[in-house]
């Protein structure tokens, strides 16, 4: 009841602005939109957008990757629906550019309008690539009231532009009827695991890149290539994407081991699969952490709404839904997120998460990956 009343009032208050805004969009002219924006947010108290929900209105363009909206029970549609229920005058519109955040880096480089408010699905290397290629600001640093809830050690952007909303840990998934559980990295180069491992291309696949970085962390910059030579001698196969490695090659039984996520058994349980083929191995008890972040575009037409959406993504409800639907760990402590029993039973956290920081990767990661790729393909 209350919500309905609020919604009508908010509608009346902002209907005019909404129409003006639409006209602004269709003329493809940035100037009109900015004007409208100021007008529509005038009434709100700055910085506490979440406290005055009825003032939130307009369309928020959220750029993301396609499985965020397409997957079976994906998190994207749930977030859209729930956010729109809470803010009846606001609308979330997803866009899924093929080349991800690079699309916006290039837009900025070419002086084209960014045309989006929030990016969801940013990881640390993409941020580094973006920073290395731009002089002007692509993202700004929003002040989120929920930012304090984020677990220690997950923040990967020193400037706090990218805010983590979930994290995954890279692990090996293996078939215990074919190979025994590998305990260390050197196990993978032993005859018992010959022609067993499927990995992904670190140039293009997030899982492949994380696994490569994990080996750099393990063997150092002067040792990781030797390790990969041994892996190659032992018959590692590196396919382009996680889909090809996991869904195609591993699922059809071509190899008994694949680089994937430590949450693998959540899926196996959900689809009632044979757990022998879904054993998770944490090498050295570790797992490489791969947090995913969201960021607000500096050119956003509606920074207030963007902030409200980002804050919403860090609420206990949303964090639980994101974790369960995206099958990744929440960015806030598990106890604060609404998780399912299935998730808590089958999602495995490694004893010791490892990761490189932004500063350690900046200026290095491209070289590490390039040297590695040349080693494999050369």
């Amino acid at each position: 009841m209350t919500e309905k009343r609020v919604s009508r009032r908010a509608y009346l208050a902002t209907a005019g602005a909404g129409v003006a805004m639409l006209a602004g969009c269709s003329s493809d002219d940035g100037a009109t939109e900015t004007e409208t924006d100021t007008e529509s947010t005038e009434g709100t108290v700055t910085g506490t957008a979440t406290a005055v929900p009825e003032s939130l209105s307009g369309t928020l363009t959220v750029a993301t990757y396609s499985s965020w909206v397409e997957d079976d029970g994906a998190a994207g549609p749930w977030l859209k629906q729930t956010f729109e229920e809470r803010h009846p005058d606001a609308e979330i519109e997803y866009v899924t550019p093929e080349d991800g955040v690079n699309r916006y880096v290039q837009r900025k480089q070419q002086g084209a309008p960014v045309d989006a408010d929030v990016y969801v699905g940013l990881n640390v290397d993409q941020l580094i690539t973006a920073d290395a290629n731009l002089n002007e600001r692509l993202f700004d640093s929003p002040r989120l009231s929920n930012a304090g809830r984020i677990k220690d050690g997950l923040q990967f952007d020193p400037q706090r532009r990218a805010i983590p909303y979930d994290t995954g840990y890279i692990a090996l998934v293996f078939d215990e009827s074919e190979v025994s559980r590998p305990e260390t990295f050197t196990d993978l180069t032993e005859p018992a695991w010959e022609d067993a491992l499927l990995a992904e291309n670190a140039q293009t696949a997030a899982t492949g890149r994380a696994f490569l970085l994990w080996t750099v962390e393990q063997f150092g910059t002067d040792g990781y290539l030797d390790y990969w030579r041994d892996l190659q001698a032992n018959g590692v196969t590196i396919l382009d994407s996680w889909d090809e490695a996991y869904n195609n090659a591993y699922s059809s039984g071509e190899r008994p081991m694949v680089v994937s996520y430590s949450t693998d058994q959540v899926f196996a349980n959900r689809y009632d699969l044979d757990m022998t083929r879904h054993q998770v191995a944490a090498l050295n008890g570790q797992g490489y952490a791969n947090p995913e972040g969201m960021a607000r575009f500096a050119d956003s037409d509606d920074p207030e709404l963007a902030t409200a959406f980002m804050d919403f993504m860090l609420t206990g409800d949303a964090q639980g839904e994101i974790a369960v639907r995206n099958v990744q760990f929440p960015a806030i402590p598990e106890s604060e997120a609404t998780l399912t029993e299935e998730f808590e039973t089958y999602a495995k956290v490694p004893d010791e998460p490892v990761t490189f920081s932004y500063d350690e990767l900046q200026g290095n990661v491209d070289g590490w990956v390039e040297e590695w790729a040349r080693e494999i393909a050369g």
Partner: protein
Amino acid sequence: MAGSRSGRERLRAERVARPLAGFATAALLVVMFYYPVGTVLGEAITDGGLTLAPVRDVLADDFYTGAFAGAIRSPGSIPAGLAGWAVGSLADVATAVAGLGDTLVSPAAAPGGVVGWPSAILAAVVGVLAAVVGIAPGFGLFGFTAWQALLSTVASLALGLPGAYVLARFEFPGRRTLESLTAVPFVLPSIMVAVGFVAAFGVGGPLNRVLAALGLPTVELLFSLEIIVVAHAFYNAPLVTRIVAAAWESVDARAVETARSLGASPTRAFRDVVVPQLLPAVATGALLTFIFTFMSFPIVLALGGLEYATVEVWLYNRVGQLDVQEAAVLAVLETVVSLGLTYAYLRYEAATSRGDRVRSPRDRERLRGVDAKRLAIAGYGVVVGLVFLLPIASMLAASVVGPEGPTLRYYRFLLQRGAEATSAQVNPALAVRNSLLFGVGTLLVAVPMGVLLALASTREGPIARAVGVLAMAPFAVSGVVVGLGLLQTLVFGTTILGYRVVVGGPLAIVAAHAVGAYPFVVRNVAPLLAGLDRRLVESARALGATRNRALVDIELPLVAPGIAAGAAFAFAISIGEFDSTVLLASGGSGTSLYTMPVAVERFLGKQTLGRPTAMGSVLLAVTAGAFIVIDRVGGRYRE
């Protein structure tokens, strides 16, 4: 009176028609191809000012060019570096050949004695092949890329030529339908082919199960160069078949009969009369296959792995890191190779076309009966079944099998999405509609455009040859670069007089597809046009026919099989196109312009390939149906 006036008007209309069409074609090419692509490729030679340093850096990099790199770094050492490579690899080959020789002459010396002799020979042959294979990687990433393209070309010819023979020379129920369907593999997204191949040829796949049931040793084909070559043949052999069959169908029956009546044996008549008329088409098929596989990308990494990376893999990765300059250099080098080959081919075509062809096709033989020839064809049928039908059946099967067994839920999912797709979700029905509309639009633009350029390129002289080479440019430029160019120019737009001009929407997509597709029409039609008897046209003109009338009544009917083959592949290009479509569909006037391959890609997700393969199966079915319809409609004008 009235009649003569309208005749004059028609004449005038005809006089403006061709230049107008020529202008429209040129404008389309500039806006949708040369301007966007030029913007990107230009970065290869600009760095503040004009420079060759980036190109030189790539050429002098051992990783990219191997033995060639040393020669670039210090030109004085060309002989030493290359000689070292030549001596090394020749020595390897010589040793292997000597080994083979020894094995052949002395059966008893083979490991395992006379019994083991055949396998020893086999091992020695493999040794020789391996030594030969070892040569190309001596030239780095470019060497390997060219090498796998060459192998793929040979495999595509071997698999495609018998098909052309069967389609052109035999009559059997379903022949027309089979011919219509030859272009189907061409449209399949690489993830579909990867799924089909892994399922068909994997350790637990039907091939190995049959081998095991027969008591034969199983084969491990996946993640090897061999499987990449087979997959390339899967895509390109049908192209060879279609192009060569079109030429074969228009071989002059009377010439063959004359040769036979003068006492030539059937073999002799084939060699001296038929083969020379087929060679340009065979060369066209080989050229196109080489160019396509030289720039192959996703399938290489899906079936072989990063060990078998091609230049295009590196190029794509450079774009991903926003290192546009190095990407541009790699693309320029790829284009130089492709256009160089095209130029060499056109020289050859000009030297061999005989210019005396009229169309009077021979009667086809019936396929029924049993003799050596027909048994060989049956054997070929088995190979076709293995390479084409098995993977396609496997990908269809993947769409109806879930983790827990047979299921139709992926198709139910497609139906459900068709009814209620929300923000940014793909509606499969819309994807089907868009694909078909863009496909038909592409045909309407690309076929006249291709015929026009084919006519321009078959005149005599260097300008015509330049037109011929440039007409191939859309095939010779990396798809990744075309996409990047379109993105940076048309999709991002430019500000003109305070308005941001952005190109996108259905017309832009059709234009981009037409640009990518018309070279097929050119390359299918030009060799046939060049082979036409010019005297026919000249006599028609002398008898008062206008140029256009001679074209419509005489030239076009004579090259109709080429137009039909070109049109089929133009349509296939439109259906299968991904790089440009996904960009143009997201810019400008709307996000609802995605096509079927884009939908396949979007449905890739967690834990199952059921959804993308279900969408891919829809793509397969819709496209196959469309091919048959197009061929039937086109066929009315063909006979």
